[in-house]
């Protein structure tokens, strides 16, 4: 077993959220809040060398704006001691480290361990190396169970049973300003917001997910009724993002636009990011031979998100076709580019022996322009000729589509004048309705 210890120079208020960032690397995680985090990385050696893993960990910590001492050892106690005291040799660890073998996760508030440490120092045992040279018989007689446990663990025997770790259901990141110095404007909010976004992205990525919708909540000191002290802003992300920087940029623009209409009443004491909706996301390896394509994809993602932020998530979309006779049901809006159509998956009758592409070709040609709401039309055979007739039965249990009847009789009308396009007209009880144009 190989254990990586991350010992943070400053206490971390929410160690669980930091641990979730590393969930992608290993599910075996233990916490010693508020200063240390342990990752069991022996199974990562199939992918990374230890030095590579340490480098990646440092890069991740930089991304979320944290600093930590890193140390790798065969057990939690040794890793913690090496990280805290910044030595490379286990034998040189000071005798105070013996408490890390007895209670590595810091659950116990017992004074017995510190007394044992003091006694050992008085006996001239100053390092873990000296401690390991003490005969087991003597330890057992002086320090009973605790001393024996510490000795066995320092030797690498009796490993600790790791507690199970599971990420929280909802991903929430929070930052509280100093009570005496809350944020007076957005500039002070942006500073912690950027690493918060990175952390949210990494936590979701560890679960194979990505942000679809995230809410930013600004908690004000007080408010004047009926206004609430919380200002909430929703941000929809249409397509997968590679960088948190781009999300931050969009969020910033949206926040400024929102606060122009709903200005802050008082100072901000708290900022929260709540992930409302996440979507599956498996990052594929970048194509290093086609850098241009990667850049273009990134630009497209940013563009789509910018458009969706301004226009709304339903106004920017790709279209996914379905084999259906009804014009309002034969395609739907999708957020991601639709996958390659597998014809075998879509058949009209469900008969697996039927050639599925035949199902698509049975639907007659549809007009390129469809009116959102059909409009009444009068026509005569003097100007128009019927070139195709089609009867469609709608689903009786579904709401009616505008003024169109349940049984629709469509005519394709060709004009006798060549400069006028064909029309797609539906017969209704009161006359005819223009539904589409073959433009």
């Amino acid at each position, binding site marked *: 077993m190989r254990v990586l210890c991350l010992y943070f120079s400053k206490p971390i208020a929410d160690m669980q959220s930091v641990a979730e960032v590393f969930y992608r690397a290993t599910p075996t995680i233990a916490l010693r809040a508020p200063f240390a985090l342990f990752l069991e990385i022996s199974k990562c050696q199939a992918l990374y060398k230890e030095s590579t893993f340490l480098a990646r960990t440092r890069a991740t910590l930089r991304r979320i704006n944290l600093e930590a001492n890193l140390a790798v050892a065969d057990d939690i106690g040794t890793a913690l001691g090496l990280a805290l005291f910044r030595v490379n040799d286990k034998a040189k660890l000071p005798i105070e480290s013996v408490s890390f073998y007895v209670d590595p996760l810091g659950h116990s508030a017992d004074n017995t361990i510190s007394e044992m440490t003091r006694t050992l120092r008085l006996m001239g045992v100053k390092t873990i190396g000296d401690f390991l040279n003490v005969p087991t018989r003597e330890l057992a007689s002086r320090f009973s169970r605790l001393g024996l446990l510490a000795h066995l663990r320092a030797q690498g025997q009796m490993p600790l049973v790791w507690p199970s770790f599971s990420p929280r259901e909802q991903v929430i990141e929070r930052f509280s300003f100093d009570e005496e110095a809350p944020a007076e404007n957005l500039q002070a909010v942006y500073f912690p917001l950027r690493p918060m976004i990175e952390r949210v992205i990494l936590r979701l990525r560890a679960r194979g997910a990505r942000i679809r919708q995230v809410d930013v909540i600004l908690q004000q000191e007080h408010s004047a009724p009926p206004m609430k002290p919380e200002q909430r802003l929703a941000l929809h992300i249409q397509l997968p993002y590679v960088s948190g920087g781009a999300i931050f940029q969009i969020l910033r623009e949206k926040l400024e636009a929102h606060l122009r209409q709903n200005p802050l009443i008082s100072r901000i004491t708290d900022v929260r990011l709540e992930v409302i909706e996440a979507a599956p996301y498996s990052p594929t390896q970048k194509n290093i031979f086609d850098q241009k394509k990667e850049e273009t994809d990134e630009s497209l993602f940013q*563009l789509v998100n910018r458009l969706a932020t301004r226009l709304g998530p339903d106004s920017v979309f790709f279209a996914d076709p379905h084999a259906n006779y009804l014009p309002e049901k034969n395609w739907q*809006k999708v957020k991601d580019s639709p996958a390659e159509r597998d014809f075998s998956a879509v058949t009209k009758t469900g008969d697996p022996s039927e050639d599925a592409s035949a199902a698509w070709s049975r639907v007659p040609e549809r007009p390129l322009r469809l009116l959102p709401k059909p409009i009444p039309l009068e026509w005569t055979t003097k100007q128009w000729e019927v070139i195709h007739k089609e009867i469609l039965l709608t689903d009786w249990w579904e709401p009616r589509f505008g003024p169109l009847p349940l049984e629709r009789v469509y005519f394709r009308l060709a004009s006798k004048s060549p400069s006028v396009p064909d029309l797609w007209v539906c017969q209704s009880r009161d006359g005819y309705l223009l539904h589409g144009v073959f433009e």
Partner: protein
Amino acid sequence: MGSSVTRIDLPAPAERREKFEALRRELGSHDQAKERTTFSAYPHGFAVGSLIEIVGPAKTTTLALFLKEHPDLRVAWVESRLTVNPYALFQRGVNLRNILFVEAGEHAHWCLTQILESGCLRVVVADNSWASMDERELRRYQLLSESHHTHFFLLSKAPHSSWIPHLQIEARSQTDLHVLRRRGVG
């Protein structure tokens, strides 16, 4: 008092053309005329970075044919009120995977500018049927299209009187195109 006439012998047209080409190469100007996207209904092809206006009863059908012939081009289809039927495009062989539909409402100008400035889409289709664009907007789109090598197709009810479109075509049917006006690389 006599007047003297100075005779200036201009070089032959072919020689003049050669000199212009050499000057362009020295200045590093982009030769758009050489980069053209083929189209079966229009043998000249469409110059990359050009603004093409299509009018007539078969304008959308013609554009669908162009997109069918170039399924790998990424397209943005922008309309204030979206009336195009994606299923009909699919029926006509257009690759919907590469078409981004944008219902821009009153933000059409902003959307088109953002799309053109991003440079990640090779074709932009704008529907001019509902509200006519003014000359300043058209000029902006033309410049952005040129600089980002994007085809800009404008679908209009009637040909715009502006000089800006490189090519104005009347599509009487899918394969019957009449050139109304052409300038520059159009």
